[in-house]
């Protein structure tokens, strides 16, 4: 378990930001979700060692969150949401500077800065002044400074904000690559559910300071009903009637997705047989899961 906390609570004055939150995070990339004001930033601050919780305890990478805050920060890389750089520097100087501040010896920091800048794709631009960087490059730079000291835990805060589609894709690929390394844990906070679904294998959902859900995405999204989603080419009516004769419930959504609710004793092959019988071509087929968006809406309540 890289992060384990028990019964964390914290209040800003009268506002209770975190209320009795307990969770444990293991392998893979974890998504941190929640409406604004749910307590995500408070949780991150406590985990990063900036706030001492009012009550509760926990460890990050084995270090106590109350006593070993500096040690935690040595092992954690943080990629902030806002743009941040230092004017008048180039990428290499910037990255090695922060490597040094993390505790790396100067020459090592310099060597590592180059490596990391190659990795994030800034090799061509690494000697240019940061003031000239585009939005996508600034995001990569933030990633580089988060990685320079080889952290065991990476916090990424809205890493794809303000990027154009190409930039988004590239950053997502980069994160996917980092997350695939078993010895780096990634914690991703984002409002873009599509990104969380692509990158994360488990999620933590906070709402109003409490833990609303936690666990592997596929477990959380699993439904016990055998629901299949299809897209077809051909005569939908006949197909539908055929399936209904088999005691399945059939619905069609506005994007022409056909939902088939099968009773437990039936096999999915029946759908294919029905399609063959009615001359319908199946072009899309999947066992349905709750979408992350629906899961979120359901857990956070208001809809």
């Amino acid at each position, binding site marked *: 378990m890289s992060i384990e906390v028990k019964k964390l609570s914290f209040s800003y004055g009268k506002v209770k930001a975190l209320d009795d939150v307990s969770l444990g995070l293991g392998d893979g990339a974890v998504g941190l979700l929640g409406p604004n004001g749910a307590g995500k930033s408070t949780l991150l601050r406590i985990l*990063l060692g*900036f706030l001492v919780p009012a009550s509760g305890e926990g460890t990050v990478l084995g270090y106590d969150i109350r006593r070993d805050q500096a040690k935690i920060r040595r092992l954690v890389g943080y990629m902030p949401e806002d743009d941040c750089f*230092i004017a*008048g*520097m180039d990428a290499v100087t910037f990255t090695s*500077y922060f490597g*040094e501040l993390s505790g*790396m010896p100067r020459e090592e920091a310099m060597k590592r800065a180059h490596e990391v800048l190659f990795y994030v794709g800034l090799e061509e631009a690494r000697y240019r002044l940061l003031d000239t960087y585009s939005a996508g490059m600034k995001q990569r730079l933030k990633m580089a400074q988060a*990685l320079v*000291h080889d952290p065991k835990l990476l916090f990424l805060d809205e890493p794809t904000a303000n990027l154009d589609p190409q930039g988004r894709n590239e950053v997502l690929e980069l994160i996917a690559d980092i997350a695939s390394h078993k010895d780096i844990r990634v914690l991703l906070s984002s409002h873009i559910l599509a990104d969380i679904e692509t990158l994360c294998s488990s999620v933590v959902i906070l709402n109003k300071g409490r833990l609303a859900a936690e666990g592997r995405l596929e477990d959380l999204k699993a439904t016990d009903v055998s629901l299949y989603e299809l897209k077809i080419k051909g005569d939908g009516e006949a197909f539908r009637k055929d399936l209904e004769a088999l005691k399945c419930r059939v619905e069609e959504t506005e994007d022409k997705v056909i939902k088939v609710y099968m009773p437990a004793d039936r096999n999915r092959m029946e759908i294919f047989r029905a399609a063959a019988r009615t001359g319908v071509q199946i072009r899309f087929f999947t066992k349905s899961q709750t979408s992350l968006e629906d899961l979120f809406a359901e857990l956070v309540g208001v809809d």
Partner: protein
Amino acid sequence: MATVREKGYYHWEGRLTESRFPWWPITRTGILLAFKKRGFRFLFAGAFLPAVVFLAGIYISERLEDFKFMVRGSERLININPAYFKTYLANDGILFLMIMVLVLGCAGLISDDLKHNSLQIYFSRPLRKQDYLLGKMAVVFFFILIVTLIPGLLLFVFKLVFAGSFKFFLDYPWLILSVIGYSLILTLFFAFYTLLLSSLSKNTRYVMILLFMIYIFSDILYGILNGIFRTPLMALFSIKANLQQVAAFVFAEKLPHAVPVFWSFLVLAAVCGLSALVLHRKIRGVEVIR
């Protein structure tokens, strides 16, 4: 046997150490960034001119006979004594030069970090607030000490060298301490002054203006208030006056203003205290994640 280095992420095999001076990279970077600013190098070089002039003065005073044709009544004009050193360290011109050095080179120390939101990444490191502030202050220390203490000590040494004897040292054994002491006072005061103003705004240009104007204006204010109220107490409003008052005290000279030197110390200390308070409140690690 053949090997291929694969593309992708590699771990770093080193160990992170706890440095004894965690603030040193901040200082080094601050100094380098200052030198990158336009015109700063010229100004900084120019800040050594007074040292050169005073050095020449010492040389001339030793070789009076050679220069008798240039200077009449020279014994009174160039007399190397503690007042000479005090003049080097605290005359209007050199104080002004120091302010300009701060304006051009150190105004952005904290304001640039505020503007570009880089406090977030500083504090995501195992860096304490003290380390950050000390690192920034050390930049000012560097620039001011190098224009006050080093030349001050060098002038002293050269005096001994040109005179060819230790007589000067024996006459004024405490002078070295005064030079060191006053340099430190100047340095500390300017460090607090600069960082206080630098932390007040995200716009470095405003800070530059503030650094300059407050210094100048405080003196003008003194002039105005003195004109109205005709009391030397008004000197306490002027930064320059306070600095010069303290200088006179440290070099055992007559105080330029009829005000107890303790109060000047108090004013300077109050500025430092205010600065410490503001810096403590403004630089908050907690704001790293919003």
